[in-house]
């Protein structure tokens, strides 16, 4: 008996937490894997959470951008393999092949805290899957020396630059200007080198059109080398009979969940980087804004602009945000509320601001408000206070905050629980740092009519997409936070491509190029974080409808859905499963509501 049990256990397919469909081809093995996962998918590591399968399954709402992923482990050297996606055909139409984007997940060497932390650690090198590339040769990796190189230019002019040099040799010059250097990914997937014993992860981004009919869609991804088809992955996509609403808070379904980031995506910075080539700056800013919008970032934290042409810059910035589909109501930033001279010269030293200086500040603030009102038609504006102020700085800013409030505007400030006691009355959005998201903190600020958002819990940088998804999504949502305003999109490093030239931080979500953005696993994790909240918002909306519908069946289905959300352990639940459970609840409620309607 004992032997029988042990033998049966040996055959358990479930031990790695996965179901195995026994598909293994002669040329390669393919695994369908969860796109967002804690697992580092490395060339020499079979996925513990994958299915040995040539079928990819995905589920998404109308208009949603849905990730899916698979790994290929070649049984022999396959050479340069071209992966081509077909259109996805359904009963009531199709989704064009152009909406099925395939990228390879590039592994490269990062600092010792890679995958886990935003603290820099240049004393160790670890192989990390991170970049989503159409052209895997954009980055060249030397596994033996554990070095990275980025390609500059194309074709015959292409050359590589060493971008994993250590901190000690960073030198005096900030040598990499991402807006100028000719680094660019291809628009479409290029042939991928598949070698025996070296697995590769592929990333699908499925853009479901808003108008796509609900139903099942199927298509293929073919793998071919030297004119010969090596095999196919089938793609099965369920398009759900609903679209996703904008994210709302858990505690109040009428309140927007703010999704924003600190960023360099503004014309001031880009103009500076591009030697005042305004047209190029606008192109780059717009490309970044669209990338941000595609990843559920709804608005931008805007810096104070101090240039001769500030008015023109601000106007165009707002117009570009609108063009990219970003929200500009409320508008956070631009407003000249903090001022080093006024703060440190007068307010913090107990001296009065000279009338001339004060009048100047009032005039400038009025001018900026008028400009924003002219472009946007509203004055729902938050001025940004001094970053991470101590008590003395915060209290010194009170006259400046009061000026904003007197002009009908509001105040955004980084803060923490201790701020509440002495500054709770003058902050309208407070951004809390750190990993602990406490509902009791949220309650306090909400009681004042203020809103609470989060940063540094963690900062951007850890590549683990599940970690990012959880900490920017359900953990904030269930703690009754009003949003995520993390630091930052990119921009901390001297050379954006080098993880080893800093002893402090490795903060970034993406890698900017001359004409766009290189997405990453963690950046996709952020999108899913906000999509989790959008799904939860949808669940709450449908549940409220069901509860109000009248029948006990609908009412109970609605309450059960809300109960599921309330019982959900946002700290440890498997978020891929949670997504499907939420969909299951929504569909069940819709079915009941449709039945009631009939």
């Amino acid at each position: 008996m004992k032997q029988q049990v042990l033998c049966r256990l040996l055959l358990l397919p479930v031990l790695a937490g996965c179901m195995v469909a026994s598909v293994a081809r002669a040329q390669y093995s393919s695994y369908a894997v969860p796109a967002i996962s804690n697992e580092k998918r490395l060339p020499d590591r079979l996925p513990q959470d994958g299915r040995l399968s040539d079928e990819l399954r995905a589920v998404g709402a109308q208009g949603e951008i849905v990730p899916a992923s698979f790994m290929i482990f070649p049984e022999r050297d396959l050479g340069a393999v071209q992966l081509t996606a077909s259109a996805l055909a359904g009963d009531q139409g199709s989704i064009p092949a152009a909406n099925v984007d395939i990228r390879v997940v590039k592994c490269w060497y990062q600092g010792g805290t890679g995958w886990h932390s935003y603290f820099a650690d240049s004393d160790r090198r670890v192989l990390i899957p991170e970049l989503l590339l159409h052209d895997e040769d954009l980055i060249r990796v030397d596994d033996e020396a554990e070095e990275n190189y980025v390609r500059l230019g194309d074709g015959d002019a292409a050359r590589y630059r060493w971008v994993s040099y250590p901190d000690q040799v960073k030198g005096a010059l900030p040598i990499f200007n991402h807006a100028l250097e000719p680094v660019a990914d291809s628009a479409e997937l290029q042939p991928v080198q598949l070698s025996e014993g070296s697995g590769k992860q592929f990333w699908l981004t499925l853009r479901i059109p808003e108008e796509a009919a609900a139903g099942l869609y199927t298509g293929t991804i073919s793998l071919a080398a030297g004119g010969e088809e090596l095999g196919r992955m089938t793609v099965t996509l369920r398009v759900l009979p609903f679209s996703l609403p904008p994210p709302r808070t858990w505690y109040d379904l009428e309140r927007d969940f703010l999704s924003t980031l600190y960023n360099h995506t503004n014309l001031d910075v880009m103009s500076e980087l591009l030697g005042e080539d305004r047209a190029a700056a606008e192109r780059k800013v717009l490309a970044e804004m669209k990338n941000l919008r595609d990843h559920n970032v709804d608005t931008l934290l805007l810096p104070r602009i101090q240039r001769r042409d500030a008015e023109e810059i601000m106007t165009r910035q707002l117009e570009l945000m609108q063009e990219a589909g970003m929200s500009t109501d409320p508008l956070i930033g631009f407003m000249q509320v903090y001022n080093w001279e006024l703060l440190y010269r007068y307010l913090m030293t107990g001296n009065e601001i000279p009338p001339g200086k004060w009048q100047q500040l009032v005039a400038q603030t009025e001018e900026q408000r008028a400009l924003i009102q002219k472009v946007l038609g509203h004055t729902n504006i938050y001025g940004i206070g001094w970053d991470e102020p101590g008590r003395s700085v915060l209290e010194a800013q009170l006259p400046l905050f009061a000026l904003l409030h007197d002009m009908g505007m509001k105040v955004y400030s980084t803060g923490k629980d201790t701020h509440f006691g002495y500054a709770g009355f003058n902050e309208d959005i407070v951004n809390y740092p750190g990993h602990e998201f406490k509902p009791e903190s949220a309650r306090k600020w909400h009681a004042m009519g203020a809103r609470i958002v989060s940063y540094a819990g963690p900062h951007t940088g850890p590549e683990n997409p599940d970690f990012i998804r959880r900490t920017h999504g359900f953990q904030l949502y269930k703690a009754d936070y009003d949003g995520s305003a993390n630091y930052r999109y990119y921009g901390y490093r001297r050379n954006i491509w080098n993880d080893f030239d800093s002893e402090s931080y490795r903060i970034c979500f993406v890698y900017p190029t001359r004409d766009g953005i290189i997405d990453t696993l963690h950046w996709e994790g952020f999108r899913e974080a906000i999509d989790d909240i959008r799904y939860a918002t949808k669940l709450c909306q449908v549940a409220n409808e069901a509860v109000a519908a009248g029948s006990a069946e609908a009412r109970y289905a609605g309450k059960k859905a809300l109960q599921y959300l309330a019982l959900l352990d946002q700290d440890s639940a498997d978020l891929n499963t949670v997504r499907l459970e939420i969909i299951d609840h929504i569909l069940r409620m819709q079915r009941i509501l449709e039945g009631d309607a009939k």
Partner: protein
Amino acid sequence: MIVKHVKTLILMMGILMLAQPTSGQEPMGWEAFQELRKEAQQLQRDKRLDDARELHKRLNAAVLIMLDDPALSLDRKVTAGLIVADALINDGEYDSVLALLERLRALPDITAAGLAKIQCAFGDMANSQGFQSKAADLYEEALALPDLSAGDRFFVLGKMATYCWRSVRDPEQLRPVVERMLALNDPSLNVRNWLRILATMQPPSTNWQRPETVEFAWNHFLRYDGISAKDRVTAFAGLIEARVVLGMTPEAGQSAAAALADEELPVATRLMAELVRLGLDATAAGTAVQSTQVEAAKTSLQAEALDLYHALNGAAAALKTLDEGRIARGYAGQAEQLVARPKPRYLCRYVEQAPLGAAGWFASELLADPLYREARFLDYSQKDADALILDVNAEREVGAKEQDKAAYFEQTAFYMVYDKAGWHIFVLCGEPNLAARQANGESLGALEMYMAPTPDSPYYQWIVGLDDGETSTYDWSSPHAGFRSAKEYLQAETRILGDRIGVYLFFPWEMLYDKLPFGVESGWLFETIRWSPAGGLSWSGGRVHNTGKWGSIEWEAPPDDALSQLRLGLLRKGWQKYRKASKELVDNYWRSRDFGDPEFVSTRLDPALERFDQAGALLQQPEGLSDAEITRLASEMLPVWHSFEYWLAAERRDYLEQRLTAAEGDGR
């Protein structure tokens, strides 16, 4: 305090009396004016800006009278007026500034130089008011005034440069101004300071500096005589690096040769220059720089190891953009080798029963056994190069803070053992002034500790406050099947005995059942940083989150049957955990009438649960299981039993995914 206030009062009264315009409109003398100006400056330094502002107003009134004083020279009138105008601009008293400047401009016989300075003051005011374009125009107008000497023009250009530097903060706008300064072609003018500013200036929103601008600035800077060796070090390094980035390799080589020939420069800089030169030659020839060449350069310049370390890194910095960093990588590697030091290792030994709690450790004989004591702490964030200046360190005099720190080095140690229950750590923190510190309410500091059971796994971080023993854990991953939060498992206790603080930490094996350190290649990464009142000391000498520096915990092999007993213990706990979780999640939820899913239970759960239960039954008679069978059972069942919720979630995910993408039905 009272005395100070009285002194201040007397001073103020004196100042105000001095500043009062005399009743007969008698002008203030030049010396009195200068005295008052100094007092105003002192008030500003003392941050008494309100008082300074009052004094500026009175100075303004005084100057307006002085302007009519026939005994005062025109030059002094203009100077006094501009001094006061500058102060009033800073105070935002723009109307007064305007009136004063207009009076100055209207002075009889005003010179071109005076007019230019007055015009610049108008520009300064516009700039202060935020009218940057207007300011730039006003400066240009000043420059266009006729009959200006080179010195006058340099003054105006200086104003323009300051405006570009401080207000616009744009090196690309500063550069043409500096070029106009150079075009004055007057060696008596101090353009070199502006060149240095231009070479090192970074714009406000980015840190981007155009290498062309840096090259231009340092190249001109180095043409001046009398530049200090320190400044030449910076300039040569910047110039060489910029020229390599720009592909100006012949010019970079010339700069390197010039630096090498400059015998006043430090040896490290000259050696760096020689290594750059060798690197450029090797790049052109497609060859490598031989270690013998490096050694010869070192010998020729009589360089020390530390010089070589800095020279290699400096040369690598200059050459890193060249030829995919081929030569630079070699130099950087050689530098790294110079400072390579072994990582600390500690052997964690097996004991049948570890001391329990801080009190248990204080009473334990292990504390007196040097075999278990690890006290080789280093300065926090010790620089690699420090390894090369040991002799210097030995000779140097240490300050009081460092003397204090020596006591902490002596009295900080950790001890570790493991047993069948888990991993036990005891950190002993001697505090020489413990009672006094406590009496004064001073902080005793904290312990910051890290651990990673594999080089690849998420690391654990926890901080223990030595005042109150409060322990905070920080997770660097979401919990999942392969990672459990330390919050759930870590036990910590802090006790004080005499002048020693003892911190006990315990990690049960349940937290790390899938990371047992036996029969594996690598040890566990480990770091302890003590934030003592005299500063930080760390086991590895590294910084926070500096995983690359962390030491390694090696694990003594357990005695014969201890490992099986340990695994059996984990299996029993896992089985209990699974039974509880299964009842809660399967029986109470998935089998329930209100929440359940019969199809999911019958197709997915029941067959698997039957197998799990059968495996659990084997634990009823553990004596019948061989070591190999226990090992196999552990490897297969521990992940399910200890993390049943994740197994269940994965099963459910697959089930739902399959149902939603099934051809039949609408996913519902």
